[in-house]
């Protein structure tokens, strides 16, 4: 799972009012190179919740994103390539996603988060 998906995902447990963002516990992170598309990055920049993104990337061991941003950063190639790397090239392979409200852990194995809820959580 990449930060692209992490940034869209929230805990869906019954009764939880703010399940976003899920806290990342990383045991293993892998990198896969993909081609950069500035148009896609610019579009995603509007959708991304930046703080969750920065925290997530830090949890995955990448610390080169600015804490605060506005849309002017999109003019910097250096920024775009960092954003690209964090958004699309880092994969959480093993670890967990933790619900911010309940502390419930959703394990991540072989890159796949297990988001299945127990019956009493639905």
């Amino acid at each position: 799972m990449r930060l692209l998906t992490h940034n869209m995902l929230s805990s869906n447990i019954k009764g939880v009012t703010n399940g976003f963002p899920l806290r990342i516990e990383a045991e293993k992170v892998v990198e896969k190179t993909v081609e950069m598309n500035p148009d896609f990055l610019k579009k995603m920049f509007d959708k991304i919740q930046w703080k969750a993104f920065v925290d997530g990337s830090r949890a995955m061991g990448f610390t080169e994103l600015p804490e605060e941003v506005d849309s002017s950063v999109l003019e910097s190639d250096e920024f775009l390539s960092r954003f690209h790397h964090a958004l699309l090239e880092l994969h959480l392979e093993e670890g967990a996603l933790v619900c911010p409200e309940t502390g419930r852990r959703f394990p991540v194995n072989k890159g796949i988060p297990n988001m299945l809820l127990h019956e009493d959580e639905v």
Partner: protein
Amino acid sequence: MASRPELLAPPEVFYDDTEARKYTSSSRIIEIQAMLSERALELLALPEDDVPKLLLDIGCGSGLSGETLTENGHHWIGLDISPSMLNIASEREVEGDLLLGDMGQGLGLRPGVIDGAISISAVQWLCNADKSSHNPRLRLKAFFTSLYRCLANGARAVFQLYPENLDQRELILNAAMHAGFAGGIVVDFPHSSKRRKEFLVLTCGQRSTNTSVTKGKGEDGESCSDDESEDEENKTVSISDRHRPRKKQKHNKGGKGREWIMRKKEQMRRRGNDVPPNTKYTGRKRKDRF
């Protein structure tokens, strides 16, 4: 498909390691799923601006449908309830991100972030009660409501499905309409028992788009044999379009709030644009309906 797999066992049991491998190595299945996915993507009617979209593949299985999305340049998130199917997807190194989850429990995704959703040969599974705690009606409701929430305004969701009978089609359609979707069913090749395919095409919120894409193929009464050489583009329409008054528009659809507007205005000012001054009316709440 000789008998309906949905009736044999719950999906996560039916699609075990053996079945998942069998499914994904059948060239016939690969070809059919690719064709269905192409058609679903076409029915999504995404804006043709060459910018990759973030799509959802619901019941993504081993990634056959997702591959079509990748080939068309899009990013996707795939959800499936069968660990065996997902394992094969990751073995095959599909490009999409995979989630193990049950669509009947609702999708845990932020509001308005997804540009479109496809689901190929999967949603009919929701009509079965595989556990005593399962109520198909409630599960369909949880699914469609959460899907509606996470789709961007104007985005579509296209489901290719194999409803077992009229009641099932009605059940699915009703749940979708109740969640706020507009749309209907498109039937391709309705006169051909072999090629007949059904797509549920749903739109979230409004979009001033042409409806020309929402046409069924092969429904003009002319002989519709299973001959592949027929010119598919010349077939005509088959759609049952339904509309329901849109609800829930006030939540996060377009309503970004005063703070957001102020921030954007500030940004525009810094760039030297001419921006109206902030007043007490800036970003004020509107009446729910007008």
